[in-house]
């Protein structure tokens, strides 16, 4: 039986991951230890959580540049609520998630109702949120609270020397949640349909505007969640945190095999994409002789490869539609 065309990109992602991990284990004995795995999951947790939200945005054919600023903004907001107002961190987190989702929804409404390029609107969102960070706080501030300490201290041991942190567990839960939303809800399938062919989706009777608004709401929510995790994980807030994370998230989504033009891809792929980026970073750290900028070079090279691969796959589809004039 022929392998379904839809799985080609994610198979490529898995192959790259296996290759990189295999190389790591071959070169450095310590790489096979679960300690590395646990660290990968923890260090990339906030990135992957954001990237899950970004996956929906890209699947719908859009882009969300505001997520990096959102992470910083949520951190600053949390610090203010916990330290300034003496709020319990969980309460602060809840408020943060609502604020994040609301801001996402706001951008979604503008994008859908006024039919404006998401690039422009989320770029505006990116500047706006980054600016608001400085309005609240100019410096790096610690978030001191027993709960935050407990959060960063929480660990589930893995076989071997590794462990799963609370961040990693939250991230895994987010990925599972993302998979369910993407593949087992009508909303999720509608996102794919809109990204695949917006005009057709409209004619098929899909509520396009509503779906797009919900996509940006979801992205706002996930980036806010990522901000919460980041704040708990670092136990501090800094207005200049997470600069450029939006681009890392987009890279994780694309390396994970999601089509930049929308309509095809998997949330699971984004998870692997994020891990691949982490593995590259770890490999370069293990090597010791290479500059950390090599991470960017490797990720750039991977992106080139994946984008060309995407083009080849979409071309095999568009050829079939030559009948349309």
């Amino acid at each position: 039986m022929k392998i379904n065309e839809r799985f080609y990109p994610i198979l490529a992602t898995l192959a790259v991951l296996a290759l990189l991990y295999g190389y790591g284990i071959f070169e450095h004995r310590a790489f096979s230890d679960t300690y590395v795995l646990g660290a990968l999951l923890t260090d990339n947790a906030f990135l992957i959580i954001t990237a899950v939200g970004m996956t929906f945005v890209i699947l719908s054919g859009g882009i969300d540049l505001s997520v990096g600023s959102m992470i910083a903004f949520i951190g600053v907001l949390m610090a203010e609520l916990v330290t300034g107002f003496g709020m319990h961190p969980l309460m602060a987190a809840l408020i943060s998630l609502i604020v994040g989702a609301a801001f996402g929804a706001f951008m979604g409404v503008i994008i859908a109702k006024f039919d404006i390029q998401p690039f422009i609107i989320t770029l505006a969102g990116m500047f706006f949120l980054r600016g608001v960070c400085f309005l609240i706080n100019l410096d790096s501030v610690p978030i001191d609270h027993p709960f935050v300490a407990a959060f960063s201290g929480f660990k589930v041991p893995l076989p071997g020397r590794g462990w799963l942190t609370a961040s990693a567990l939250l991230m895994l839960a987010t990925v599972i949640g993302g998979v369910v939303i993407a593949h087992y809800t009508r909303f999720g399938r509608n996102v794919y349909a809109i990204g695949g062919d917006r005009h057709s989706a409209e004619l098929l009777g899909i509520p396009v505007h509503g779906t797009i608004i919900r996509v940006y709401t979801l992205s706002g929510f996930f980036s806010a969640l990522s901000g919460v995790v980041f704040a708990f994980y670092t136990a501090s807030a800094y207005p200049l945190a997470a600069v450029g994370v939006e681009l890392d998230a987009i890279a994780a989504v694309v390396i994970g095999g999601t089509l930049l033009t929308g309509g095809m891809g998997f949330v699971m792929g984004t998870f692997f994409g994020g891990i691949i980026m982490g593995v590259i970073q770890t490999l370069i750290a293990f090597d010791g002789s290479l500059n950390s900028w090599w991470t960017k070079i490797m990720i750039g090279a991977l992106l080139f490869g994946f984008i060309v691969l995407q083009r080849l796959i979409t071309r095999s589809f568009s050829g079939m539609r030559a009948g349309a004039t």
Partner: protein
Amino acid sequence: MSNAALSDGGRDTVLSVRGAGKFFPGVKALQDVDFDLKRGEIHALLGENGAGKSTLIKVITGVHPRDAGAVMLDGIEIHPQHPGDAQGLGISTVYQEVNLVPTLSVAENLMLERQTRKFGLISWRKTEADAKAALETLGLDIDVNRPLGSYSVAIQQLVAIARAVALDARVLILDEPTASLDGDEIQTLFRIMRDLRDKGLGIVFVTHFLDQVYAVTDRITVLRNGRLVGTFVTRDLPQIDLINHMLGRELAEVSAHRHQDEGSYVGPKRTIQVKNLGKKRVLEPVSLDLHAGEIVGLAGLLGSGRTELSELIFGSQKADSGLVFLDGEPVMLRSPRHAIRSGFGLCPEDRKQDGIVAELSVRENIVLALQGRRGWLRPIPRAEQQQFADDMIRALGIATPDSEKPVGQLSGGNQQKVILARWLVSKPILLILDEPTRGIDVGAHADIIKLIKELCDEGLALLVASSELEEIVAFADRVAVMRDREKVSELVGAEITQTRIIEAIAR
């Protein structure tokens, strides 16, 4: 609120349109059109480009809100706001350019928004089984998990029909469904259409293939220029009458021709010879001579090869056989750029898409072709551009406040004049006009025709494709008649009458 009295079809009629009107700025796209669709019939909706077929369909399906009249489904007036609405009411449409999502699987395309859910989550096993069952009613057995885009257009179209039928459609509108299908695929489609008809569905079939109309339909409604010509029983309507309804008006023949007063042009007799120009699956080889100071009309139904011939001569489609000679010398026709350098010009049928650059100003649009002919390395001085633009605005009577207004803001007739102006400043030898008067209001219509005649007197060779027979009869010195992607006849002088052209088209 019953409008039952209005619909004369009674219980048999599933869809009834009364006095439908749709007006766009400057154009009455649809005017006072009645249309009745019975349960269990296949009803052809025919007309040339711009006759109002697609506008009528868009009004029925809610793409455009109607400006006048009523649409009734089973006797109850409906106001669909968008195609989804119409679908919910039981009116499903399948378009030529399959409107499904190619990146999704076949099953998903069939079941979007209707997936079976368990505990709020989609049950894929049940959804796929439902999709398979829906396809089986059409006798289609394919792997529903593969992406739709990996199947042929024919299968995609059948999937679209399956989706429409599965939505409990009462009315199925098929808009040019056969345009990209081959013979066997068309037969399959017809079998499915007959099956669905026998199950009581009302089917509207839009096509420009007349043999298909006779093969599968029960009744025919003909539109022309946005108005209803009539509804006929297919088997009682000879093909020649049908073509008459589509192209001609049953008026006395217009006899004010210009072919008698030939020879108002005295200048170098340049000739363009088209020899066996053709392309596989697009156009059978065509030969045609064109002379300076002469208008050759290109007549034929939609899809007869009119547009294709124009494009092959202009090089925007590449011919795979034949040559074009200019004064006996072969001309390179690899691309429009080559054609323009050789002195050919084309005003395309679809102004908006292929002709004007809407965002550029009148002046910029006018100098485009001349600049293209001179090459980009020799820019035309601004003053000279202004001169050209002002001259043309005056000469052609282009209604624009000044030469800097974006062309997109002008009316259709004035846009057409800008395109004409563009070619005129580049002083072409041959100018091809594809449907020069389409979508233009009556006043501008006469202007354009007058202009065409003047151009000819100035020594241009003109090739004018049109579906308006009156028009062709009024200005052509010779008429080439196209049918089924082939040139079937050439009429000269006194032979040029609407009747003769229609006879040639109907064979």
